[in-house]
């Protein structure tokens, strides 16, 4: 265990400038349209998401950024009236075609939600849940190892290692959210989607999650929806700006915030609306 731990630590202290490396496309989406009943929520979104970097989706509320995020692991399927059109490819395979199974897809593309939602079970059971249902680990030892690893990666291990049997709902808000991140990591996904993961948290807890996101970037592809431009600037390498269901602009985070191409982006980041 200790050695794995050490390796992680080394990784973390060596940030990678992703722009330097040859970037591999994880998600390739073209012409994504989403309808809720009669109402169209997304109009022809073309966006690529690259491996091992944090992509932030920003924009005013109701702009479709969460809707877009939820198409990436087909969470929209749970809403009866929701229809999705267009091509969404994960590693070159269309996830809405029959060839990818939704359960399998969600095992590969994990999700962390706006409000921390630990199951009303013990901390241990919360994390063991994913590996158990997917059959990733079967022996008690394997599960123990995954639980510990995931908690370490979510930098929660030190705080909870003595009370793994206590209910996850008893943790503080920030801890609960890190527990949810650990729960997602335990399934060993390739991508983690985060839907405003800090909106229900205080500034200190937010800072810890942001740190954590930065650390996780080395191992996972991360897509984060945020309503805070500062957060996008702090954690992401690339930023996409949504407005009224359109993808207005996408690019290097630095560029978006310093030299936006579109007037609407300019207005939004300078605080004219939001």
């Amino acid at each position, binding site marked *: 265990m200790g050695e794995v731990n050490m390796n992680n630590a080394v990784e973390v202290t060596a940030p990678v400038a992703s722009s330097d490396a040859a970037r591999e496309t994880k998600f390739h989406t073209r012409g994504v349209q989403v309808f809720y009943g009669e109402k169209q929520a997304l109009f022809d979104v073309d966006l690529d998401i690259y491996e091992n970097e944090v992509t932030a989706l920003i924009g005013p509320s109701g702009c479709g950024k969460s809707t877009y995020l939820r198409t990436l692991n087909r969470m929209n399927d749970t809403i*009866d009236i929701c229809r999705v059109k267009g091509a969404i490819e994960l590693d070159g395979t269309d996830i809405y075609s029959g060839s990818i199974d939704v359960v399998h897809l969600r095992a590969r593309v994990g*999700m962390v*939600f706006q409000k921390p939602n630990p199951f009303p*079970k013990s901390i241990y059971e919360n994390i063991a849940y994913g590996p158990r*249902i997917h059959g990733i680990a079967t022996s008690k030892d394997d599960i123990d190892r995954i639980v510990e690893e995931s908690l370490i990666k979510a930098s929660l291990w030190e705080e909870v290692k003595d009370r793994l049997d206590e209910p996850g709902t008893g943790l503080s808000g920030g801890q609960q959210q890190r527990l949810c991140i650990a729960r997602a990591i335990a399934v060993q996904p390739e991508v983690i989607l985060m839907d405003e993961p800090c909106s229900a948290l205080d500034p200190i807890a937010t800072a810890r999650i942001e740190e954590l996101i930065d650390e996780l970037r080395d191992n996972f592809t991360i897509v984060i929806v945020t309503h805070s431009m500062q957060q996008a600037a702090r954690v992401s390498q690339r930023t996409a700006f949504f407005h009224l269901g359109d993808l207005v602009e996408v690019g290097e985070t630095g560029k978006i915030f310093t030299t936006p191409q579109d007037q609407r982006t300019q207005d939004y980041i300078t605080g004219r609306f939001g």
Partner: protein
Amino acid sequence: MSFTFVLGALIILTVAGFYMGRSRSLADAGGTAQRLHSRPHYYGYFVALWCGIPTLLILGVWTMFQTPIIEMLVQNSLPETMLNGDPAEMSLIMNDIRNLASGNITSGEITPQIQAAADHYVSLNTTSSLAKFVVILAIGIAAIAFARSKINPALRARNQVEKTMMAILIVCSVIAILTTVGIVMSLVFESWRFFEKVSPAEFLFGLEWSPQTALRSDQVGASGAFGAIPLFAGTMLISLVAMCVAGPVGLLSAIYMAEYAPTKVRGAVKPALEVLAGIPTVVYGFFAALTVAPFLRDQGTMFGLDISSESALAAGLVMGIMIIPFVSSLSDDVINAVPQSLREGSLGLGATKSETIKRVILPAALPGIVGSFMLAISRAIGETMIVVMAAGLGANLTANPLEAVTTVTVQIVTLLVGDQEFDSAKTLAAFALGLVLFCVTLCLNIIAMAVVNKYREQYD
């Protein structure tokens, strides 16, 4: 002077009081309502309340106590020779007097004493009714006169009327408590009298139940046995069968309705299930006795099983059907109370719907489901008509659902339907059974409600 007549007169008087009060207030104010403290109709209500409330109260109390008091008077006026102290004989005599007075056929011979008493009874009744009418009318008129004299522009009629209304509201709320008190008092009081004849230990732990007491005291071997264990066992057996049907079917349909069913299906099936809940229990009883029990018996014969035509199975099955909507709607509420975020959390990890339900939602909803099952059990225990019509009468201590058993509610009905003497242990036993039934269902309900409420709070 019939009750309806007096009531009608009273209502007319009260309405008249309203108009008198209103016109009086306007007259006092010189025709301009602005000078009055309250709007004129409040003065009307003021007078009407003064007239209506005391008279209605007197009417109610008088009517309630008229019969007991007259009977006491008649009884006391009977000649010494007839008062030999035997309460059973006394009640027979009173019965004759009552029948004679109302012109019915009497059981015994009519002695001159009884005839005299009956005449006395009739005359007391007439006097009382007449007196009631006169007294009430007099009080009503006096009250109107008094209230009217109090009216002046400065009188705060609205405040007074509202205060009275508030008192009426409070009295109405207290009726709920009075009902409970009435239930507890009547059950405890009658049970007390029963336990004077039969020891509580024998009642609660005795294994034999045959409530036929002797007709004459010198009869042999018919003393009656009041061991209620076979009844409790029978009740539990039938409730168990019922829960075996209603539990799985109700819970699974609740899960299907809450988690799987498309909105359209849900919109159609939910009211259909509510139909099951709205069917009177006597209909289920008829269904059990006419269709289910013979069907089971015939099926049993085919497979070489001996199924009684009043089997616990038939009654339990039908009772289970009756309870399905109860379990399913309560469980549906409970499952819907589980926050959507937990579902999303589980689905987001790649769990299938059934995994989410079995491993996240049901454990989270467990306390609520347990609570709803307890409420359903309490319902099954207290259910009467199905078992009266489809279960047996003989107290049979068995765990075999193919045999006939009897239940607490069946015995209450059997003991109390038809003519009874109010002093025999047989009749009083029904109240002791009622007390047990009340206590058990009350405990189940209180615990279940506490569990469900605590569960609800958790997700609020």
